[in-house]
């Protein structure tokens, strides 16, 4: 990944967008680096698509400014921006064939017939649609249309490619294949991709960095790993994967760590630079895969607690258990890989569950 440029390729500065009395975006500021695969992630209505449309120029902010490649995009229409967009519906022109679709944007530049053909073929090769040039648009499958849309945008050699939920119309297997494809494509071409999606798995798989958005605001911008392991709020933690929340109380606060008491789990030491008031209540997060069901009576786990199985969901390679912790009404989810020696437990069964210091995260805020 090239991040030689000192200046970010996209600077979104304090953007607000109102639709009548509805505030779709509220003071959004993001910086995107050149050559990044950047995703805007959030539930429907969070403003991610609105933001993408502001980047593309199909809409203008109510206040704030957007800079692309160092230049202000105020009052710059879509056709004059160094961006190109892949639309959610792909928007393939039905009255033109594949080659004409892909070469659509180049018609203005009046290339020689040969050169145009070469560029079109080059773009088709890039998306694995070589020799599809003469196909009619209506004869294409969903996945093929998507690749035509990609080729059509990439042939314009934009500095930034904007993708509006490009995989949502595809079935699961195809989607998974395309996720890998898109990532590979981006690395090959080397330009910045900005992708909008509501699917957190998708964002995690493809992105270098992700901006998680709720209700018009940016909650957290981080790499997938950091977002997953250190979500900054309960909202982000629940949106990315599954998170168990357990109340705890701060016992001692030291320079670089705090000692906490977690209900039924006992005491634990967590590393943090933040100062907490002893006696205050905080929320601890622990991912389902960080809890382990203990099968072996002779185990060497240091920290375990008793739990009752409420329900179980079997997924073939994994099983998810909803458990009740001890006698409390605190519930949690545990995920276990179904390997040898791990029979599936039924509801009502009692079992020991192990956990470790390192698997706890402090969840700040709401």
């Amino acid at each position, binding site marked *: 990944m090239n991040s030689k440029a000192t200046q970010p390729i996209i600077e979104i500065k304090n953007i607000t967008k109102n639709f009548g009395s509805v505030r779709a975006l509220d003071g959004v500021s993001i910086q995107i680096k050149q050559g990044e695969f950047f995703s805007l992630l959030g539930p429907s209505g969070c403003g991610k698509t609105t933001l993408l449309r502001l980047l*593309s120029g*199909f809409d203008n902010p109510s206040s704030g400014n957007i800079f692309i490649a160092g230049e202000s995009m105020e009052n710059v*229409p*879509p*056709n004059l921006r160094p*961006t*190109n*967009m892949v*639309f*959610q*519906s792909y*928007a393939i*022109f*039905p*009255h*033109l*064939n594949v080659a*004409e679709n892909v070469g*659509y*944007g180049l018609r*203005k530049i009046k290339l020689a017939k040969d050169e145009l053909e070469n560029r079109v073929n080059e773009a088709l090769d890039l998306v694995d649609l070589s020799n599809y040039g003469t196909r009619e648009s209506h004869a294409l499958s969903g996945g093929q249309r998507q690749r035509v849309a990609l080729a*059509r*945008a990439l042939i*314009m050699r934009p500095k930034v490619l904007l993708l509006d939920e490009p995989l949502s119309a595809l079935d699961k297997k195809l989607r998974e294949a395309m996720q890998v494809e898109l990532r590979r494509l981006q690395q090959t071409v080397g330009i910045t991709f900005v992708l909008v999606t509501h699917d957190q798995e998708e964002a995690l798989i493809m992105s270098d960095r992700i901006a998680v958005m709720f209700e018009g605001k940016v909650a957290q911008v981080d790499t997938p790993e950091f977002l997953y392991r250190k979500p900054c709020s309960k909202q982000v933690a629940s949106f990315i994967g599954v998170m168990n929340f357990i109340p705890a109380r701060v016992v001692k606060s030291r320079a670089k760590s705090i000692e906490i008491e977690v209900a039924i789990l006992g005491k634990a030491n967590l590393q943090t630079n933040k100062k907490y008031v002893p006696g205050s209540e905080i929320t601890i997060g622990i991912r389902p895969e960080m809890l382990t069901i203990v099968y072996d009576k002779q185990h060497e786990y240091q920290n375990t607690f008793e739990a009752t199985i409420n329900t179980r969901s079997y997924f073939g390679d994994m099983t998810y258990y909803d458990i009740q912790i001890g006698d409390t009404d605190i519930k949690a989810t545990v995920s276990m890989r179904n390997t040898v020696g791990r029979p599936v437990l039924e509801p009502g069964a009692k079992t020991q569950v192990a956990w470790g210091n390192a698997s706890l995260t402090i969840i700040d805020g709401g």
Partner: protein
Amino acid sequence: MPDLNQSARRGYVLISPPLMYSLVMLAAPLALVVLLSLWSQNYLELDRTFTLDNYIEATTEPLYQLLLGRSIIISGVVTVCTVILAYPIAYYVAMFGGKAKPLLLLLITIPFWTSYLIRIFLWKVILGYNGVINGSLMGLGIIEEPLTFILYNANAVVLTLAHAWAPFAILPIYVSLTKIDNSLLEAARDLGDNAFQRFIRVTLPLSMPGVIAATLVVFIPTVGDYVTPKLLGGTDGLMIANMIQVQFGKANNAPLGSALAILSMVTVGFISIGFVLLSRKLGKVKN
């Protein structure tokens, strides 16, 4: 009878009343008209020997040729004018109508639903020697003598028919415009097209089916119009329908009238099919 599934049989049962009605009341009479055109009128008696005399007369007699030719030309001009004038309105309602679309469409079709006869007559009032146009222009001092070229000739017929058929042209164009996916226009814009280029390269080609439908819907019935040429055409604006009516009326030559009717229908049919084929070919050549 082939082995039909239950759905097909039920479908046939249901559609048979209207189908029977149309076959008996439309198809059969039309067949009879064809038959009649092959007979001849011998003063007061109908001579049922088969003959092509009527058709020969219809195609060779200069008067009938003139009327048929003029009818087709007038219809052609009306169609071109009506469709071209209708496109911007259809475009306006389809693209900028917003929530008012159903209301605007209703407003467009309302004049059509009122009595055809009355509307044609009102145009006569507008275009007449003492009519509204002349009265206003003279009142404003723009002209001193009333204009005479606006009534009782082909011009008046063209103008009036363009008015009468406007909604028929607007609706098909409107429908095909609304079917254009907005994201196609956004994609074109994203790829560098300005408003005019988007219109020519995306909107216009995709609205062609509507334009073709509008053309046919205006052209075909206009050729057979009777009232407008009769009221406004004078002698220079008479069309084939007037002659057909005369044959069935005063001239008492139903076979000739039938031949003229069939001839017009066939001519219009050929022109229409030719037009549709031509537009299909043109569409393919561009690609």
